[in-house]
């Protein structure tokens, strides 16, 4: 019965890692590697269900507290807007819808993925730098007025340079965490504190969601997740961002569905990339690769653990999100923001020391330039896009 016990324990661990800002599944995966006996498939099931549940639950701190994770930090911005309108719970539910449907689509599309995507991997890799450069260009020209365009260009150059320096010297583990904390966490929290934002009572009503929008958003996220699962240095956030820029105007609801789904589908596909070509594209896949050689007979239980994770993650996020959102307005939000700010700074110091503080200070300052000059904060995404372009061009 270990085959059921371990995934269930993974689900509980996923809830905890998802709820606590700064604790990533990769951290737990490293601990598992240290204690797990070799070739024990039960620990693989633990890791898979934990990662899937985490991909659902981590939207709660992202949307409710403005505390981003490295996997879904783009949700902080639309999530916060929903929160200020009293629709934080709806934002969480949209991310859950994306996660469920993208998870199911990913499993259903696996045979197609196996057959076709491998054929196109080289073409997609070839196109990535051109697409990213085009998106950077769009980011500048989409701002209204010469002054805003100039500020967008400055923010893009500063963010890109910061990303290049930090990711090259601190790596994609701690470096990415520090940058995301600065660009999307601290800057949001500091701005909230200066504006003395008050969180309204959140509406906890039974929602009706547009079925077509949900299916379309989930399908797009499955598509994005499947493509980035193959590509080194391109993650779910970049994929969602590219989708938004290339497809054109996507409303905030659909964008949250895409963000909810892309994380889950990327995770699922990355496991099958490991089985197919032995490449690791996520921390969990890398840990599994160290634990066991995936074989054909492992695939069915893997799908079982994924389905369990999808169901458990969706239900847990819905229940916990409801409890937190119901009580959020009673909490002194300025006090809560200050506590989270201190907590994120402490985590930054723990992971990066003095240099980590410098990274957070720089990136949050650039984030605040974007906010105060009233340009889109997603311009700071250049911190990931520029290093990706550099890697793909082999510079």
């Amino acid at each position, binding site marked *: 019965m270990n*085959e059921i016990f371990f995934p269930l324990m993974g689900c509980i661990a996923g809830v905890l890692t998802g709820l606590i800002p700064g604790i990533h599944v990769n951290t737990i995966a490293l601990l598992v590697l240290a204690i797990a006996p070799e070739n024990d498939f039960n620990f693989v099931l633990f890791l898979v269900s934990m990662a899937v549940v985490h991909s659902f639950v981590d939207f709660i701190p992202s949307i409710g507290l403005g505390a981003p994770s490295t996997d879904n930090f783009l949700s902080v911005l639309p999530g916060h807007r929903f929160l200020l309108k009293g629709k934080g719970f709806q934002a969480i539910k949209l991310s859950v819808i994306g996660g469920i449907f993208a998870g199911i689509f990913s499993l259903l599309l696996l045979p197609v993925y196996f057959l076709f995507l491998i054929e196109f991997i080289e073409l997609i890799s070839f196109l990535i730098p051109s697409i990213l450069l085009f998106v950077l260009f769009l980011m500048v020209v989409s701002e209204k007025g010469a002054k805003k365009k100039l500020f967008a260009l400055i923010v893009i150059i500063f963010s890109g340079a910061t990303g290049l320096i930090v990711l090259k010297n601190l790596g994609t583990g701690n470096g990415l965490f520090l940058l995301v904390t600065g660009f999307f966490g601290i800057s949001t929290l500091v701005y909230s504190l200066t504006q003395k934002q008050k969180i309204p009572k959140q509406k906890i009503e039974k929602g009706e969601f547009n*079925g*077509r929008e949900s299916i379309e958003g989930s399908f797009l996220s499955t598509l994005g997740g499947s493509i980035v699962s193959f590509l080194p240095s391109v993650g779910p956030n970049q994929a969602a961002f590219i989708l938004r820029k290339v497809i054109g105007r996507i409303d905030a609801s659909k964008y949250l569905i895409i963000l909810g789904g892309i994380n889950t589908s990327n995770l699922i596909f990355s496991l099958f990339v490991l089985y197919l070509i032995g490449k690791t594209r996520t921390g969990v896949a890398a840990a599994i690769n160290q634990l066991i*050689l995936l074989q054909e007979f492992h695939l*069915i239980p893997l799908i*079982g653990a994924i389905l*369990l994770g999808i*169901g458990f993650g*969706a239900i847990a996020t819905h229940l916990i999100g409801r409890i937190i959102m119901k009580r959020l307005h009673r909490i002194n939000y300025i006090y809560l923001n200050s506590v989270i700010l201190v907590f994120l700074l402490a985590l930054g110091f723990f992971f990066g020391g003095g240099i980590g503080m410098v990274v957070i200070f720089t990136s949050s300052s650039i984030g605040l330039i974007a906010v105060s000059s009233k340009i889109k904060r997603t311009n700071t995404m250049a911190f990931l896009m520029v290093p990706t372009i550099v890697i793909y061009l082999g510079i």
Partner: protein
Amino acid sequence: MELNDFFISRIALICAVLGLIILFYFSIQSAYTEKGIEEISNELIGSRVSVKGFVGESFFAKETLFFKLSEGRNSIQVVKFNPSVEDFEEVKENSFVEVKGSVQEYKKNLEIIAEEVKRVGYE
């Protein structure tokens, strides 16, 4: 078409239950069946077996340990990917071991992809 909370929660519940059923089925299927080397045939390809025998010739190449497992006149090739230090200690020529793994076909020959190799007493 509208999606409501009831519909979404039911889909989530179905996913969780389906996942548990698959895992339960796997837990029954994944039990190793004890077999003698002479019983290993094409019909067992893909199934998980536990086989005992004496270790014959062995060699290590490309992070993989290969050894012959024999009992009486029957023998089968065993493959252990990424072997640990303990695996090397267990796989000594003429030692009697229990191999747990799955039966696979490679170049028209049957072999066992070992998940666990353990020295046991000869019965």
